[in-house]
């Protein structure tokens, strides 16, 4: 089977992001494979190991995202597709249309995995939009996955420690989250072999996708520094009295 994993090139979650030009950021920081996508790659690799076939890494990003495609291929995957764009921010609507076109042009999917969300924009839209575009079932926040004879059973977190079990027909889109599998850091030989795996580079423009332009990034702003915390001392009654006083007089959230 042909399994696609949609992987995003994101700034390291520990990176210090500097806003430049109002709606962009300084890209000289370190970039990584979107952490949730690592679970997606792991699951796709296990599936193909069992069922046979190939894992194809698909990434939409700037030319520099090639490093992320290679890093993803070191974790798992047989070949890659890098769809190049000059845009720093591509809205989920357009991303999903581009991914659909690229996957179809490449031969079409028997299964699609992705991370449930990107660690940078956190839109949580792409899985749903991609599935809708392709007319496939979709489940995200997936922590358990099994496949047998064209049927997919997933378990997903629904909060409060509860899990929902969903059966879907393949092909479908699965949005992975932490816990789906244990991310094992790649073995050294796999890292070195990843650079020899084929990666097809395409220009996003050549796919001729017509996005509606539903979302526009207007501005990026630095998160304000958190102000100093206040420790309230004394007995519970005293502390509560002080708190009410502060909420009323200083924060002015109480009448």
């Amino acid at each position: 089977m042909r399994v696609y994993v949609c992987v995003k090139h994101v700034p390291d979650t520990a990176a210090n992001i500097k806003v430049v030009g109002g709606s962009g950021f300084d890209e000289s920081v370190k970039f990584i494979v979107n952490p949730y996508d690592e679970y997606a790659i792991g699951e796709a690799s296990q599936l193909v190991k069992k069922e046979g076939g190939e894992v194809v890494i698909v990434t939409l990003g700037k030319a520099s995202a090639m490093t992320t495609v290679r890093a993803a291929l070191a974790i798992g995957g047989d070949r890659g597709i890098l769809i190049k764009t000059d845009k720093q921010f591509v809205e989920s609507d357009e991303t999903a249309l581009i991914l659909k076109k690229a996957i179809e042009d490449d031969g079409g999917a028997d299964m699609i995995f992705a991370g449930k969300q990107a660690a940078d924009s956190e839109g949580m839209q792409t899985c749903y939009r991609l599935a809708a575009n392709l007319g496939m079932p979709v489940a995200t926040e997936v922590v358990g996955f099994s496949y047998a004879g064209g049927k997919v059973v997933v378990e997903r977190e629904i909060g409060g420690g509860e899990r929902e079990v969903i059966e879907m027909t393949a092909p479908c889109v699965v949005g992975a989250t932490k816990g789906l599998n244990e991310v094992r850091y790649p073995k050294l030989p796999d890292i070195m072999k990843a650079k020899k795996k084929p990666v097809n580079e395409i220009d996003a423009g050549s796919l001729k996708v017509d996005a509606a332009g539903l979302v526009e990034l207007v501005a990026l702003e630095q998160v304000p520094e958190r102000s100093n915390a206040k420790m309230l001392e004394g007995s519970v009654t005293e502390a509560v009295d002080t708190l009410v006083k502060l909420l009323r007089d200083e924060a002015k959230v109480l009448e």
Partner: protein
Amino acid sequence: MADQKDSKNDFQHYFGKEHDLVRKSVRELVQKEILPNIDEWEEKATFPKKLYKMAGELGLLGVGYPEELGGTPGDIFLKIVVGEELMRSTSGGLVAGLGSIDIAIPPIIRKGTEEQKERFVRPVIAGDRIAALGITEPGGGSDVANLKTTAVKKGDHYLVNGSKTFITSGVRADQITCAVRTGSENAHGISLLVIESGTPGYSTSPPMKKTGWWASDTAELYFDNLKVPVSNLIGEENQGFYYIMENFQSERLQLCIMANMTARIALEQAMKYATEREAFGKPLSGFQVTRHKLAEMATQVEVSQEFTYRVAAKMNAGINQIKEISMAKNFACQVSDRVTFDAVQIFGGAGYVRESVVERLYRDNRILSIGGGTTEIMKEIISKLM
């Protein structure tokens, strides 16, 4: 070197994306499997044998060795990355123990037969066998040409008698790449034999009790009429001295890395402690004397590391660096002597007890200017090549 250079970081092309990924993988192993246990292993003066297997499975033992033997070929900086990250375990002994492969198998890879490589290289890279190098003897270390262990050829085997000392991984080693005398009483009479620990007449001392490197099982080896098959001879008879010397450049580079990392970790620990520890109503870092000490330490560490990288880059390009790597080793050891001393000084009493990492770094550091060629031998080499 790096295939994919980030244009903005083009000046820094020692490490590329693959190096970063390898760094991350090794760091993960160190954080998950080693750091939570290292204090206990150090106190028990050992580490579990299964760590060799884990390192082998991750591909860490085979870095720089041929793919046909299960290795992962790569440039010199790939090896540096692995060495640097293993040092994050804060245990030079563990790194030396896992790393004895790197002094033991290169001569077999360079000069050995296919059959020898299958038997003595492949399983070591996989982490299934432990390899050690045996050169130093109770009668002498630096004076390699004068070694006394004899190997007398008797038909299809050598009869080996003598002993070796300060052998890293000596207690647990399955095989020793061993320097023996097969000919004249000088450098031209030395050969390298692979001696297997199961050979009748082979025995070892208990682990030697050392100043540092506690996790490493260092031993004396005793050879009492060992029958070692002639097929275990590496390369040509009486050429061993030259094979040993070929090996030293890369061993010295690894020692530079160990010294630089020992110093760097000591510096990091001292910087952290200086902001946490208060004296006379302010953190230690509030005193100019501490800040200046830290600034000096940081300068030394940076200079030493950069020089090592530069020499490594030239080695990688195939340029002879025997003089320069000797300089780098001496410089790096001098820096780590100074920096570990100063780090303990900043910690005060807390740096003299075993709860602190700097205490171990200070002890572990001492061997670096002795092993792999002493400071004095390095200076002899430098002065001859000046």
